């Protein structure tokens, strides 16, 4: 008996709607967040991630309302990220119904933010979201939806962030996001080996084998988006295939 490996559907949210792009660009509408979240829970999702990708203050207001609406129907954990720049932003999301809060760009700009959130709300609800771009030899942190390369080494950053209080890492391969080429397994392995907190692999899932490989590479959870939103598969089908491959999942 031990922890089950998690399948985590991710909803990118803009102006109250689910959207999906490739490498964070060319966003297209993918439905109502409440309907999507409820459907995925019914299919056996282990938790839901909402990422607010709107860039405007109005969009942020929409996002809080979306969190409230999703929370009212959801009886599994909800992680929310996007636009968290201060501990108070995290507090607002938690109050609206998030169970965990993801920080990304603002933590790169000002790393102490991680400790401020962890101290106030606990490590278990402080998630470091990292977007990683391959440099050939290693990976560097990219921010602002991939528009800015920071030169910061991903593995070092994850190590530092967990020492400051991040309780989980949501690790997205910028190179694979939305491409359906499979997760960047060397990236998953490098970060999972470097930290002692759980790692969620993200970016590139297309088939059950990809999720199995991410778990075998050291991830505690695998994030999926496009393949679910496009109706190509279901969480149920993914988990059944993972169980058949010998991975412990929650039935």
């Amino acid at each position, binding site marked *: *008996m031990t922890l089950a490996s998690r399948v985590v559907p991710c909803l990118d949210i803009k102006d109250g709607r689910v959207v999906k792009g490739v490498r964070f660009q060319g966003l297209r509408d993918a439905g109502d967040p409440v309907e999507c979240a409820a459907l995925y829970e019914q299919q056996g999702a282990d938790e839901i991630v909402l990422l607010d990708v709107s860039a405007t203050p109005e969009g942020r207001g929409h996002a809080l309302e979306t969190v409230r609406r999703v*929370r009212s129907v959801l009886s599994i954990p909800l992680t929310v990220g996007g636009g968290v720049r201060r501990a108070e932003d995290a507090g607002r999301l938690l109050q609206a119904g998030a169970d965990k809060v993801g920080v990304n760009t603002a933590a790169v700009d000002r790393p102490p933010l991680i400790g401020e959130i962890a101290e106030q709300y606990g490590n278990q609800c402080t998630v470091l979201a990292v977007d990683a771009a391959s440099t050939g030899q290693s990976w560097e942190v990219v921010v602002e939806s991939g528009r800015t390369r920071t030169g910061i080494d991903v593995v070092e950053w994850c190590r530092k962030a967990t020492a400051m209080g991040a309780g989980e890492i949501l690790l997205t391969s910028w190179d694979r996001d939305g491409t359906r080429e499979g997760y960047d397994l060397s990236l998953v392995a490098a970060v999972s080996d470097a930290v002692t907190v*759980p790692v969620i692999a993200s970016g590139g899932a297309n088939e059950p084998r990809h999720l199995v490989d991410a778990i075998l590479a050291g991830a505690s959870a695998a994030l999926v988006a496009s393949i679910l939103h496009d109706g190509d598969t279901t969480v149920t089908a993914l988990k059944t295939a993972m169980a058949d491959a010998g991975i412990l999942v929650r039935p």
Partner: protein
Amino acid sequence: MTEVRILPTGTANIASVKAALTRLGASVSDAETDRDVTDAAGVVLPGVGAFGAAMSRVGDHGLAPALRERIEGGRPTLVVCVGMQLLCRESEESPGARGLDIVDSAVTRFGDEVRVPQLGWNQVEPAPGSRFVEPGWAYFANSYRIDRVPDGWVGATTDYGGGFVSALERGDVLACQFHPELSGPWGARLISRWLETAKEAA
């Protein structure tokens, strides 16, 4: 409608507890006075953040004595996550901080052989005589845990680098190390069984 009061232990995660109870038809509000704690049909001590911080919030509101009396009397009380650890005297997490001191168990950190925090779904195995807990999968988010069942309580256990206590029951008190409000239909059924006792006691 069953009236349930929630103890103010901070903001994190309280929305999930409220949403779960509301879906099950309870009337939910905050406990602001010791009278609220004493009179409510059901009381929830939700789980958030660190042991010391959570305990001092309860203490700041002057609610600790009423809460202790309620739990010792076995009246309908649902205790979640770090709330369960608050039943103990102290925790490795916050040296020097004093808990409710109701049960005699140690609160210790998981070992280095597992990823900490424990974040995710794990199996709960109830002990014989359990009124509330059924075998099943529950969602956990914790770095610390109680390592043995205290005398006079019925305990459920879970394995994460060794066994730990995942739930405790005595009278109409149900304490869960996991989050029943985030444990899908299994968790909803558990809360619903507890709510029934609050309804009967009201």
